[in-house]
């Protein structure tokens, strides 16, 4: 259960990225977060795992107040949240397995991580995740040898290896061929359905949101302008959500 209330984020340059955002998401939901570029989708997701520190409001995940976490406690929280980036953010000079294993770093003392002393179970989890995203047999391939779609699948495997309670995906298809969207969203959807893990995906293509998500949260200029089942989305609402798109350009 994620409970966000009165969330605010003002960046040091004065940009009001989030204004009075309150939302509650039950466990196991698949939520699409939609809106224009710059509407605050990304900041919202990044606040949830504290890559961005909110300037006001509370975030409760599974009853814990996440907004106040610091240091070791923050690391312990983050290891339960898989984050998938638009630009994959893999270490391209390392192998697929090394990248996926790094998802386990939060579960071990620092010295073990430094020496790459992962446990047997870590290897099993990593290899299972690699199989699940369809890259079986590519363990030792350097990531820079893979295509963009394959790289994003490695990133998903890394998130899965964390054994997360929550997956946040920030425009995971935006730098890929549009035809790969179904592969990526399909993987996340399957993971959501088989493991019951909550998934939040930022999407700016509304058709994809309609196809995969049960629920949609729409942002415009830092505020939630719609929050409800995907079936309630209609043309009027869409024009509200995408209002001001020409100004934004």
């Amino acid at each position, binding site marked *: 259960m994620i409970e966000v209330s009165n969330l605010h984020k003002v960046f040091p340059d004065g940009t009001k990225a989030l204004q009075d955002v309150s939302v509650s998401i039950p466990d196991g939901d698949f939520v699409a977060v939609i809106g224009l570029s710059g509407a605050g989708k990304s900041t919202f997701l990044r606040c949830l*795992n504290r*890559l961005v520190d909110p300037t006001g409001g509370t975030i409760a995940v599974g009853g814990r107040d996440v907004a106040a976490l610091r240091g070791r406690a*923050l*690391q*312990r*929280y*983050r*290891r*339960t*949240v*898989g*984050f998938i*980036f638009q*630009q*994959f*953010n*893999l*270490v391209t*000079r*390392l192998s697929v397995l*090394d990248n996926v294993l*790094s*998802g386990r*770093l*939060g*579960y071990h003392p*620092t010295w073990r*991580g*430094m020496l790459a002393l992962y446990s047997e179970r870590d290897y099993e989890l990593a290899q299972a995740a690699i199989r699940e995203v369809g890259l079986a047999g590519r363990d030792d391939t350097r990531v820079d040898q893979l295509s963009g779609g394959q790289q994003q699948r490695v*990133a998903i495997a*890394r998130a899965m290896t*964390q054994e997360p309670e929550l997956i946040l995906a920030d425009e995971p298809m935006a730098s890929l061929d549009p035809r790969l969207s179904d592969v990526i969203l399909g993987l996340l959807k399957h993971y959501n359905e088989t493991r019951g893990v909550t998934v939040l995906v930022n999407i700016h293509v509304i058709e994809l949101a309609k196809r995969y998500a049960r629920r949609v949260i729409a942002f415009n200029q830092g505020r939630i302008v719609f929050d409800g089942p995907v079936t309630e989305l209609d043309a009027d609402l869409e024009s509200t959500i995408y209002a001001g798109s020409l100004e934004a350009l």
Partner: protein
Amino acid sequence: MWVAFALGGVASVLVGLANGSMRRLVIGGGVGLAAAYFAFPLLAADGFVSRDTVSPTLFGLTPIHPALALVLVAALLGIAAAGLPRRIGGSLAALGALTTAGLVWSAQARTPQLVHLQPLPGLMEALTGVAVAGSLTLLGWGSRRLRIPLLVVGIAAGALTFGFLVSPAGHGLFPNADGYYRLALPVDRATQKDIVAEYNANLDTINAQRKRIGLHALPAIASTADLDTQRVPEAAAKRGYRVVRPAESHYGVWVAMLLAGVLLGSGAMLAWRPRLHETGDVAGGILYAAVVLSLAPAFASTEFSFGKLAEGWPFLMKFLDRAWPPLWADPSYGQFGIFPLQEVASQMLITLEIALVGTFLGAIFAVPLSFLAARNLTQGNPLMRLVFALTRGFFNLDRGVDTLILALIFVAAVGLGPFAGVLAMAIHSIADLGKLYSESIENVDRGPIEALEAVGASGSNVVRWSILPQVSPLFLGWTLYRFEINFRVSIVLGLVGAGGIGFFIQDKMSSGRYDQMIIAILAIVIVVNIIDFASSWLRSRLV
């Protein structure tokens, strides 16, 4: 002298024919001439001993040749061409240039003349202050935010510099600055007579001394014109009397003539083709003038001379003559024979080993330090920021001290030999590599760092798993690059006694065995090329 004049004229005409801006050259010539008028030595004025000799500028000579003031007028006309109609400006500049050339020529074609030096106290000090203020102001001029603060700071710093230099403490540290700038004033007939009398009165003592060291006696003189080849009496020289000798001209003559030529050529071209101008001519002209004004004294103080090169030419030929053919080995020499090629091979190996060990040690220490000197890793808390500042400070300090200087110190400390060279090289390489490494760290892709923070990895694991894999090939590349440089440095290290091939070269050079030295030179050329080639090939495969 006329060569410079013609050179300036022809060059500017050619630039004009190639459609370059003539107004820019006119302005540049004017600014340059104005600066040369006040700052560049034109002739020599001798006293009794050689340290009495001063070099008056055009301005300094104006009191005895008042017509020289027209040179300043010509320079100002050139500058005024920025605002005048172009035909008129060009014509005036050309006219001024002709006048200048004539005046400078006549100033250095006159007979020697007795003058009295009048110091202008505080002028040098004031100019230094203005230079400090000006450079600080220019530094901030580009940025709107810094313009006013730096102007204020500049003026304050300039005033402080001036105040310090004119104070007794300043004069104690920079004794030459006091009254550095001197005007040459004419001497009236009565004083001239006194000095002639003084000269003749001292003659007996001087001739007695000259006789002792076997020089012929000097005759008495009748007027100051006879001081042409003689010296001013000691006491008179102390009181500030000098003989201006037009025959001994300084580079100021060349610069003035060159700039006059430029003014003439470009002024005439501008009057003929007024369209030869561009916007931004004033800034461009000042830039040209600045280049000429900084290069001319630099050539003069580095004693650049084609004449000396021509004089030294036979030595170079003789050197090559004696160096070829190389003496590879001579088993019959002396009791045991000599084997220079063998020696070069072993010394070259030592040089290579100095470079290897020096680079290795430098890299070992530079890697950990570079993480402390990377801005993006040290902004967490005030302590880390302090560590960052200290490490960077150490790097900058260390980088400022060249390997060769360190080697001189270490040779004194640990004695002659390769160890001193290795120490010097390692210490200098730490700073150089550390700076390059830390810049690589600062330029890593932020993405993987963020990703590892997002999986809950600790700070050191983020460095280990996201930064290190990204920077390690860069580190290796920089290390190879430094090794290339260090190899060339270690050749020179031998010259200060830190072992290796340089030591061999110095030894053979001083004993005149050029036919052995040439082997070392050939070996260096070959090995340097092999190492550069191998290193760049290796670096191109790291990525």
